[in-house]
């Protein structure tokens, strides 16, 4: 690229930045906080309910996860979760309901391309990277934890 062209590109980038409105981060954070918080409160209610129903400490969180995944998937299916997501942003993406949404949404979208190469192949299109790096990271940290416990403590 010539010097002249590089100069033009830099000047243009400045114009674009000047003319482009910024995302409203403070408003976004507040919305994410209260919606995300509300989802967590709902989760805690189910955990308490599970404990009250005499489920063990190990199974109560699992019960909660199942309920939240069910809710997230159902809300995706009836076309409500994308509206919540539009309002709350990360507030509804980060909790487990967002994970359910990211699996259910491609399932609905790509059903038309068939059960195997459509739905089957695309189901984890969005959740796949989370699984790949989530599982990889837990293996790495598991090894570190084991090594520290074995040799250093």
């Amino acid at each position, binding site marked *: 690229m010539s010097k002249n062209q590089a100069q*033009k*590109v830099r000047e*243009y*980038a400045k*114009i*674009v930045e*000047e*003319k*482009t*409105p*910024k*995302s409203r981060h403070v408003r*976004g954070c507040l919305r994410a906080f209260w919606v995300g918080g509300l989802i967590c409160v709902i989760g805690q209610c189910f955990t308490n309910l599970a404990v009250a129903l005499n489920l063990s400490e190990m199974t109560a969180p699992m019960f909660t996860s199942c309920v939240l995944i069910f809710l997230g998937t159902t809300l*995706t*299916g009836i*076309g409500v*979760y*994308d*509206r*919540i*997501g*539009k309002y*709350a*942003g990360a507030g*509804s*993406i980060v909790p487990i309901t*967002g994970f359910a*949404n*990211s699996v*259910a*949404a*491609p399932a*609905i*979208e*790509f059903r*038309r391309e068939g059960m195997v190469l459509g739905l089957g192949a695309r189901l984890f*299109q*969005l959740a796949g990277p989370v699984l790949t790096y989530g599982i990889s990271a837990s293996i790495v940290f598991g090894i570190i934890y084991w090594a520290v416990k074995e040799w250093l403590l």
Partner: protein
Amino acid sequence: MRVGKQTFVYEKPPEVASHASVVGPKEGGGPLADYFDVILDDDLLGMKSWELAESEMLRRCALLAMKEGGIPEGSAQAFFTGDLNDQIIASGFAGRALELPFVGLYGACSTFVEGLVLASGLISGGFLENALCAASSHFCTAERQFRLPLEMGTQRTPSAQWTATAAGCALLRNSDAKNRLRVTAGTLGKVVDYEIKDANHMGAAMAPAVESTIRAHLSDTGRTAGDFDLIVTGDLGWIGREILLELFSRSGKPLPSEKLVDCGASLYFQEQDPHAGGSGCGCVASVSCGWIMKRMEEGELRRVLLTGSGAMMSPTSSLQAESIPSIAYAASLEVI
């Protein structure tokens, strides 16, 4: 006849014999609703996939243009069309149903104007008596191909645009009648790239291409912005339009703001939440076939420079972090 570096001036400028527009429910709730010929209540059109729905919308639009133009169905000599789907399937499927001699084009969102420029040349040269120029886009086919599944709960950036569910089709024909809407000149753009990489900021990626093509058209034909009643851009959106005005004002030959109309920025109300405005092949096609051409026929406008711009990127190029090359075409529409 070729003039300047990139422009054709048509010796026998073809008449726009008819034009048709079909739009989805959201577009039909926008400020231009009164100008569109058909507003669909169901954007799936009773089909089993969004792609088939888009193709059906394009087919209906072409049929309507032939009917309005008073030519029997199936007698158009060529069908110039394109869309945003991989391998322009919406156009291919519509072509299959219409059984017309087919010219599939891809200029991303500039396709409609690209078709006008090419078809006018063939008609002026005597190779065709008439031709249909069309383009379509559908929000739901574009989302699944370029972005995310519809039900994903994510936020869009303020600069993101909304792909219009719309199709537009114009029937061009050779004629000697007086006082008709005609395509008098066309300019082929060059692919321009100012290294914008954000696929959610198409207006910024395309504005320099539009500037380059408008400038080429004006210098090739020896006209100035003042010679036109309106300069219409395809789908720069509100932000891209501002950027284009800034580019012209920095060059020392500013465009008068009131003369610059962007189809994408005109298609929706802000309250409909289209973010930076409409986009897609169907945006410039439906707005020019609906709004602009109708206003010209009513005598409100005499001469309009219609430009369409397209971002020549794909999901693959975005993932590979390539910048977005853009193209723009211009056609001069005049009532003469």
